[in-house]
């Protein structure tokens, strides 16, 4: 089993203003690219609700790698989550809280101290979600 891939996060916002013969442009941007090699990855998909939600233990999701073996994460180094119509993901006792709505992907690199479980709840009613967690070697 060998994992390789990329992580990309970028944003750019152009603020433009014109007054008479003067044009002003203010550009705010960030870009992050990373090559990922090795480690382990899990993917969890499902449906959650706005009451109890679902709790996912990254050490026991049943996800299998390309070799067909179950993957168990003891730590998490990259996290991506999306949900529709919207979900909140709360990680461990470090209390990192990510929100994702309308299929947009929220991301973080770490969840702080404590266990690595994640509780996913819907913002309203029920929502579908997809969670990707990667642990480096």
């Amino acid at each position, binding site marked *: 089993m060998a*994992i390789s891939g990329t992580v990309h996060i970028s944003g750019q916002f152009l603020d433009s203003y014109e007054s008479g013969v003067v044009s002003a442009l203010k550009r705010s941007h*960030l870009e992050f690219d990373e090559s990922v090699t090795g480690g382990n990855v899990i993917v969890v998909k499902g449906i959650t609700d706005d009451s109890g939600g679902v709790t996912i233990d990254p050490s026991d999701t049943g996800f299998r790698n390309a*070799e*067909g073996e179950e993957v168990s994460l003891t730590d998490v180094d990259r996290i991506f989550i999306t949900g529709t119509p919207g979900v909140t993901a709360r990680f461990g006792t470090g209390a*990192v809280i990510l929100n994702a709505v309308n299929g947009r992907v929220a991301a973080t690199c770490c969840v*702080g101290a404590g266990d690595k479980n994640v509780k996913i709840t819907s913002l309203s009613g029920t929502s579908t979600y*997809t969670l990707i967690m*990667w642990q480096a070697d």
Partner: protein
Amino acid sequence: MSVEGFLRVSIDLNDTHTEDSIDSLKKVALSSSNAYTNGIIAVASGTCGTTAETIDISNFRGADGELVDFGPISGLDDSLRICFLATPAASLRFLDTSITRGTFLHSVNDKPSVSFLARYPEGTPQFFVGTQQQPEEPSYTASYTLVIMKEA
């Protein structure tokens, strides 16, 4: 003054395995790309330590030279896009009165954290940044950058 732009987040991983004469590939990919044609944006950067401090976004000026006014935010606001970077490590809090709701992001070594929407009690948005609750020893000074965009 008009703001337009985009925000992209993606991960694309290939898990390969070769055994005997069989090659296996398991591909994991997730991405979103959204364009924005109208809204307001503010950027704040600075340093922080173990004591949580408020990030003041009220002094950011638009292309027209005027202060950017985010106005009050109440309850669940799904028009906010929040990007946070810090090095060596820091956390950003933007919380509802209940800590179980809101936005709480960590960043390490300038790896960005991105969240969409925020919950907040009524009022002007306030962000708190600090190095507390980090996996590393928190007795250091961190630098941070916050980009917050609100769709019109």
